[in-house]
């Protein structure tokens, strides 16, 4: 975020700009901003409104005779009575809770480790390597998971075998398949937490740490009262982004388990996709999607209300 002096400075120039250079409506400025607004209206907002209207219609891709018939809240009633919808939503939220806790804890641990280590070259290598899981195409990560979690010749069971653990049928067992998805997500996104925490740690003033060290030898106390406050904005941002990402998580589980075995790893996005493009009921799928959207908006609004700041609002 820009610091306070910058913001104040900007506000001042803003007002002079408004009064002297650009009286009332600046048509050129409007013309420069409108293309992006129109583009987002067309590809973002219009399909959204379309989805809302679909959710009130009968719309079957495979039997299009009566498509477009207004059915009121029937699709919503179907969704709310649908056990699979609730179980997939519950599964998604459980996963969200687990990965948030693990990734934030591990991310902080990794960041503190790198931040306090004296091995410059190794630090640099680790920091660069952290980027690789994040950038990897999620669909390919899922495929790689199929190989690593293979029961008979997968790397995971081999490594577990070294410490005496029997072969686990990762992708054949409902619970373990979910665990495999969670492990994969933790592998891919903990580095993101670590990068955020690292950049937050860089903001802690050195003399503050030195001063605290004079008072106490306890490293935990220094971390808790000096460093952690600087990490909070990063932790918040991480929670916001990951909440949105897990609610829309599709690519990696799609290639890793396809929701199986059975529906045991079917996350909410996978279920909506199946409803729309395998069961071909676009009406019900849209109703599900709209409910998911409402959940997203509620969470995003809450997060932004409590944590996000526009650069101007400070």
């Amino acid at each position, binding site marked *: 975020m820009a610091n306070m002096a910058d913001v104040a400075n900007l506000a001042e120039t803003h007002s002079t700009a408004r009064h002297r250079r650009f009286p009332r409506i600046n048509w050129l400025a409007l013309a420069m901003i409108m293309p992006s607004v129109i583009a987002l209206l067309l590809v973002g907002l219009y399909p959204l409104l*379309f989805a809302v209207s679909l959710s009130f219609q009968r719309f079957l891709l495979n039997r299009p005779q009566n498509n477009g018939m207004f059915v009121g809240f029937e699709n919503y009633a179907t969704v709310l009575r649908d056990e699979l919808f609730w179980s997939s939503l519950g599964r998604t939220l459980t996963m969200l809770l687990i990965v948030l806790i693990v990734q934030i804890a591990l991310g902080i641990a990794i960041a503190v480790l790198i931040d306090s280590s004296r091995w410059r070259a190794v630090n640099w290598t680790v920091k660069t390597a952290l980027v690789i899981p994040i950038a990897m*195409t999620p669909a390919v990560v899922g495929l790689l998971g199929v190989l690593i979690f293979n029961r008979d010749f997968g790397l995971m069971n081999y490594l577990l075998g070294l410490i005496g653990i029997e072969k686990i049928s990762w992708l054949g067992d409902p619970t373990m398949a979910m665990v495999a998805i969670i492990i994969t997500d933790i592998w891919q996104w903990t580095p993101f937490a670590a990068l955020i925490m690292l950049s937050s740690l860089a903001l802690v003033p050195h003399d503050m740490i030195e001063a605290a060290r004079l008072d106490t030898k306890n490293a935990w106390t220094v971390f808790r009262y000096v460093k952690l406050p600087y990490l909070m904005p990063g932790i918040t941002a991480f929670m916001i982004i990951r909440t949105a990402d897990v609610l829309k998580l599709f690519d990696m589980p799609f290639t890793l388990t396809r929701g199986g075995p059975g529906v045991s790893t079917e996350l909410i996005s996978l279920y909506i996709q199946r409803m*729309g493009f395998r069961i071909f009921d676009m009406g019900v799928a849209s109703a599900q*999607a709209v409910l998911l959207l409402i959940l997203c*908006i509620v969470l*995003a609004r809450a997060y932004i209300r409590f944590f996000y700041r526009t650069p101007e609002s400070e």
Partner: protein
Amino acid sequence: MAYAENLLSRQATKAAVHRRRIPIGAWLQLALLILLLVFILGPFYWMVSTSLKEQNDTFAIPPKFIFTPTLEHYNFVLFSPSAIVPTGLQNSLIVATLTTLLALVLGTPAAYVLARFEFRGKRDLWFWFISNRFVSPIVVALPFFLIARDLSMLNKPQALILIYLTFNVPLVVWLCLDQFRAIPRDLDEQAKVDGCNLFQAFWRINLPLAIPGVVVSAILAFIFSWNELLFALILNRSTGQTAPVQAANFMTGFGVKWGEMMATGTLIVLPVVIFAAIVSRHLARGLTMGAIK
């Protein structure tokens, strides 16, 4: 006196020795860092090594860490008569490049205006732009499928190029906004004195100065578009398949060819991993829409 001097110098040597010797904690840190590196890179290494192994070596127990590499899988997925991967990579390249360019054309002027002007509703506009980051693609994908079908845009790159704007335009706007803010306004005033209008001030003065931010946002937009699966899967099922869709299709059918699968995976992942390493310092910022420096 001599004794004190002696003592002092002995202390000094002791301190010097102490300084030179690396404490045990640091060795522990080194061990942890290396372990961490192994965990991060292990799966990536496993993908690349499997793509270079004979099929028999893939199934070996214990797994083979040392083996005779072969390029047969790459040869097969790239050059066999039935190879589809080159088209997939080409489709991905076309889609990701064009959507990135379009996002830059649309996004940079908007970012400049947002950086320089105060107006009513700016906060709402900001919220609306950033909220696109929170909308699940599946919500937009269902109706977009019907729209694209009616406009006969299914299985063509156009639909994907347009739909990827939903996340690329906000990304470009918010990363470039920061960059434009950092450019001194005096330059704008000077440009105005020299007779430039707003667009000319943007195009001739500010945009060239904002190139670092523009490049970073372009690379990130490219990575996200290249990696995307859900829209591509729904909109480009038959022709025009992007590389991730082909990767997803590997899992259908029996007798998985691990070597070819991992060779394809490596080909898909390699360009974005290289790009990501180039912009590694900015990746976290891009993922949080510029909220984290």
